[in-house]
């Protein structure tokens, strides 16, 4: 209908820049996406560790001191929380992207993998075993 449309004046407001603040669901989405920011901090720690390892024992000891500084520990605790929040969202989305088995089973198996790997690290580096 090309003609007699003279009174049409469709109104489309600009998409809000702060759209993600408007609903709790969107806030949680942004939080999920933001988990990569503390992740980048931990990756930087690891790269710094690799560098220190390549520079010899005294630099390696400096890295160990660095990892024990309170602000570094605080950021790493935050990163641990972020990785667990990411894991929760990722494990719940995965069965919807690849429905291979009942979702609750897939979620449980993925958490099991995380626990097994964490156990592996602790056993490998812990002195209790």
């Amino acid at each position, binding site marked *: 209908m090309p003609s007699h449309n003279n009174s049409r004046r469709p109104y489309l407001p600009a*998409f809000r*820049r702060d759209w*993600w603040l408007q609903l709790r669901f969107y806030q949680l989405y*942004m939080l999920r*996406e*933001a*988990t*990569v*920011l503390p*992740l*980048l901090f*931990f*990756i930087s*720690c*690891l*790269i710094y*560790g*690799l*560098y220190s*390892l*390549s520079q*010899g*024992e005294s630099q*390696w*000891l400096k890295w*160990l001191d660095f*990892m*024990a500084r309170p602000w*570094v*520990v605080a950021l*790493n*605790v935050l*990163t*641990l929380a972020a*990785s*667990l929040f*990411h*894991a929760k969202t*990722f*494990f719940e989305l995965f069965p919807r992207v690849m429905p291979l088995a009942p979702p609750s089973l897939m979620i449980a198996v*993925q958490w099991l*993998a*995380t626990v097994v*790997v*964490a*156990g*592996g*690290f*602790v056993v*490998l*580096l*812990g*002195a209790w075993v």
Partner: protein
Amino acid sequence: MSNSGQQPTRSDEPIWWALFSAGGVCFAVVIPGAILAVGVLYPLGLIPGEMLGFERIRHLLFESFLGFAGFIFVGVAICLPLFHAFHRIRHGLHDLQWAHGWAAKSACYCSATLLSVIALGLWVAAH
């Protein structure tokens, strides 16, 4: 017929999405344990310093698994999570309407590639 337009071009996004997904698995499965051990339990004294001794870590990274343990660790704890992180940053920049398009995309994936190359280079250099 529906010859109303050209076929749209294929996106290269499957490549980035595959790296993002692989990195997402690493972030969820490998990273929590790694941070727990090195970033939390060690500084709290629950893992003694000698277990993270220079020679011991060198041995773990460069000699176990036919010498490839360090390579695997760099891959699953650094490189793939880097691509995961920069993929989300790229889409986050678009979501926040801060930046999008070719420049933001290249900056993100170039950063991930560069940092991955540095990490792998350090693994080689530390031998």
